[in-house]
């Protein structure tokens, strides 16, 4: 009749310290993970999520305290634990030069599957992950979502009782995310216990129970609804005029009694302190259903203020007649493959323009053509009237670029990176020194000045990258997934800066996977299968998919519905 333990995993007083770190990675954590449910380990980067999961797999051992997995102690029974757990690390060890089926074969062999049993397991996994049509494709050529599915398939081959997933949805588009969640529900039905770590807070509400971690401490343990309860009645949506919404947000964030605020299309979502009277606000307001993120930010003591020192430090940009960013029938072919086709849009000065789309849809290609990193096959990509591929140094010094993954010199110190980029962008002498000092002050880099930038916590890496991109006061700013993986507080800080800069007349183009981030944009272009399938304000896009089934669509709903429509349209065209 199975074991009498109802807990899948028991964590008792676990502390983990790494040498060279001042704070413990995990600080006296005690929690139980129940059988047969999805438990989310939620928290920003460097909160200790990965450490906790690795401790559960007994790949790491606790400094003090103990963990048992289905009654097995990680200190003593690591082999037995490996037999009953499936573990999918953040970067699953797929061999990119092997095909899907070769990867499966390899992991099947490693787990000792043989003959008939192996065939059966493969068959099951391939249909479960819908990877069947792609068995001969190289793993390196799969999209982010498909890679994760293949990783999952490999981890599931041994039919584990407990599945441990470390940030399976990083870099995965909303559609693939939904698919992964659907797959989890199926696995749950088969009696599996699932531990799922994530920095996407909206995923937390889909878990049955949540361990909320921040800086190694357990902030909350229980059903997510229990946490959101603490902000019940304190979350409101304010209707603000479209023109002044950024200024309004900035003012609201600086208001005492408001702990958090974000843009949501044409509305502002705020979280108030319990004693705050919303009545006093000049904007019309409606109460809103609290989200996990509202409660999380509130638990941490609220978001940053609404004033961007960065934006304050730059002069307002003068008016020009030339569109800051313009594409005309932009097309890029790689051999037979069309990566971007016939993409046209014009971005106004001081506008924040978002490029959205699933992985591999062509948004990076479009982005790169605009930056002059790729030569368009057809059409034009102009920045302030220049083709950046051939533009003069003068023209190129007017743009700022922050790449998708951290791409500063990681062997160089923080100060050396700032020195280098200021030098390359032609800042000199006293002015250069003043700008560098200002960046250090604004982004609180002082205590990291001499450390290698590769060793910084992710939030600081991103801050440094932004600092290097804006130090020379560009007119146009390109941000490729600027807040991927950072905690919600840092993300708010980033957006305070971005909003402030837009108010000063800087034109900003952003690519993102985060729907919350997309909500900040003035306009969004949705790129799918190399085409621009919809352009408009976040509210326009939501409005366009409103239906009886979806009376109140979120931006994610809009994203998915628009893509499904495009698929349907294509199918009809083929028939």
């Amino acid at each position, binding site marked *: 009749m199975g074991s009498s333990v109802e807990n899948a995993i028991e964590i008792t007083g676990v502390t983990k310290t790494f040498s060279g770190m001042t704070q413990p990675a995990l600080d006296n954590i005690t929690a139980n993970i129940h059988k047969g449910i999805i438990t989310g380990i939620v928290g920003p980067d460097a909160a200790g999520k990965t450490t906790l999961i690795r401790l559960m797999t007994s790949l790491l051992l606790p400094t003090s305290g103990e963990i048992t997995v289905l009654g097995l102690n990680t200190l003593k029974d690591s082999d037995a634990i490996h037999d009953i757990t499936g573990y999918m690390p953040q970067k699953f060890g797929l061999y990119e030069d092997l095909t899907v089926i070769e990867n499966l074969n390899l992991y099947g062999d490693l787990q000792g599957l043989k003959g008939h049993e192996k065939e059966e397991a493969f068959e099951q996994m391939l249909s479960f992950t819908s990877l069947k049509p792609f068995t001969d494709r190289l793993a390196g050529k799969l999209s982010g979502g498909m890679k994760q599915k293949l990783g999952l398939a490999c981890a599931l081959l041994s039919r584990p009782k407990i599945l441990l997933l470390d940030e399976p949805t990083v870099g995965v588009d909303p559609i693939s995310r939904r698919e992964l969640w659907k797959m989890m529900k199926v696995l749950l039905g088969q009696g599996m216990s699932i531990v799922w770590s994530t920095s996407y807070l909206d995923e937390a509400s889909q878990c049955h129970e949540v361990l909320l971690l921040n800086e190694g401490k357990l902030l909350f343990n229980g059903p997510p609804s229990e946490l959101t309860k603490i902000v019940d009645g304190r979350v409101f949506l304010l209707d603000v005029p479209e023109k002044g919404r950024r200024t309004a947000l900035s003012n609201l964030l600086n208001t005492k009694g408001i702990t958090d605020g974000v843009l949501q299309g044409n509305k502002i979502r705020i979280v108030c302190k319990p004693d705050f009277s919303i009545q006093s606000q000049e904007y019309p307001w409606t109460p809103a259903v609290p989200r996990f993120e509202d409660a999380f930010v509130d638990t941490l003591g609220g978001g940053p203020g609404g004033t961007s020192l960065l934006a304050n430090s730059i002069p307002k940009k003068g008016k020009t007649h030339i569109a800051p960013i313009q594409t005309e029938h932009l097309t890029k072919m790689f051999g037979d493959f069309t990566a971007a086709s016939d993409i046209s849009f014009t971005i106004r000065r001081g506008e924040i323009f978002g490029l959205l789309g699933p992985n591999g849809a062509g948004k990076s290609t479009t982005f*790169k053509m605009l930056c002059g990193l790729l030569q368009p096959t057809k059409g034009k990509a102009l920045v302030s009237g220049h083709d950046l591929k051939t533009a003069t140094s003068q023209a190129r010094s007017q743009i700022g670029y922050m790449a998708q993954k951290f791409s500063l010199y990681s062997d160089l110190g923080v100060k050396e990176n700032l*020195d280098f*980029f200021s030098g390359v*962008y032609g800042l000199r002498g006293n002015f250069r020194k003043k700008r560098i000092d200002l960046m250090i002050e604004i982004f609180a880099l002082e205590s990291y000045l001499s450390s290698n930038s590769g060793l910084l916590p992710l939030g600081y890496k991103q801050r440094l990258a932004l600092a290097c991109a804006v130090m020379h006061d560009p007119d146009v700013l390109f941000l490729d997934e600027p807040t991927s993986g950072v905690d919600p507080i840092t993300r708010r800080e980033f957006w305070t800066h971005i909003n402030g800069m837009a108010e000063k007349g800087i034109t900003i183009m952003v690519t993102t996977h985060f729907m919350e981030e997309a909500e900040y944009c003035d306009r969004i272009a949705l790129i799918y299968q190399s085409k621009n399938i919809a352009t408009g304000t976040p509210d326009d896009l939501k409005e366009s998919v409103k239906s009886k089934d979806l009376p109140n669509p979120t931006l994610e709903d809009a994203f998915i519905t628009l893509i499904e429509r495009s698929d349907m349209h294509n199918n009809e065209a083929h028939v």
Partner: protein
Amino acid sequence: MNFTNRYIKARRIWYRIQALIMKEILAVWRDPKSRFAMVIPPILQLFIFAHAITLEVNSISLGIYNQDLGWYSHEIIQRIEGAPYFKHVYLLTDPHDVKRLIDTEKAMVTIEFQQDFSRLLAAGKQAQVQVILDGRRSNSAQIVTGYLNQIFQTFNVDILKREGVEVTEPVVVQSRSFFNPNLDYIYFTGPSLVALLSLLIAVTVTSLSVSREREAGTFDQLLVSPLQPWQILVGKAIPALIIGIGEGVFMMFMIITFFDVPFLGSYLLFFVSITIFLSSIVGVGLFISSLSATQQQSLLGTFVFMVPTTMLSGYATPIENMPTWLQPWTNILPMKHFLIIIKGLFLKDMPTSEVLSHSWPMALIAIVTLSLASWMFKRRME
């Protein structure tokens, strides 16, 4: 006005390149792997070449089994013991020890005198000595045979003289090596090492420089910056030149001070020629780098370049020993020309005209490789 404008513009460009050069040198130094590659191999190679690898054979151990009690064998043994090459001379009493000594590699050679050795010689007859050599070390064994032959020969002449026999030696070879009077091996390897190691470091630094940035994603960051492609190229070439020349100077310092190899030529000519030499190498490195997407590919490319460079430049074997059809082709290797120059400058104060006559082929190669690199560089950006 036009002139000042141009001056300002040029200065602005220079500042940008300067920032890149600073970064490049810092990056090479900060990367533990490349720092290791700069410091350890030169010292190691210097040590190996100077002490371990040498064509001379000395510290030989030798066993002697002497059944003869006469004066003649005694005289030979004394001469052998007195020779500088033989470190250990074992005097054996058991015939089995002869085999054992060779088998266990205790001795490379054994000599056996028969009982009647002295008697035969005293009677004016021919006597024989048995010499057993360790054939497993054939090269050294040959050289040892040479040493022993010399000893026996002088011994022969001496005893003939002693017996009152008139010996005439029609030709006496008195060999003297010019520029390397004592045939010190380090005189040959030292200067070559200056060339080899500065080349190695320059080609590695440059071949990794672009691909490392491609891997880290920082290359895009450079391309969107105001730096023009040619400026990036210059910014990557100059640090490699500086590091390569630095390495050359360091090696030169080491072999002059610690190994007493003289430097007879002009330092100015050294700097001029090594700059031209390394420019051509930097071109090759940058070409490899713009061709490869990863650092691994770069290293493979470097390897492909290094093999012919060491084998065919005259570094490993003399060019005169190569097939005639191959010899002209060695001219496309910059290393060949620079080896001639650097040895000339070290050992015989090579005159300016001769240095220049070996420099212009390198300059030509440099122009070709650098243009190829910049062409490749632009092409890869499409």
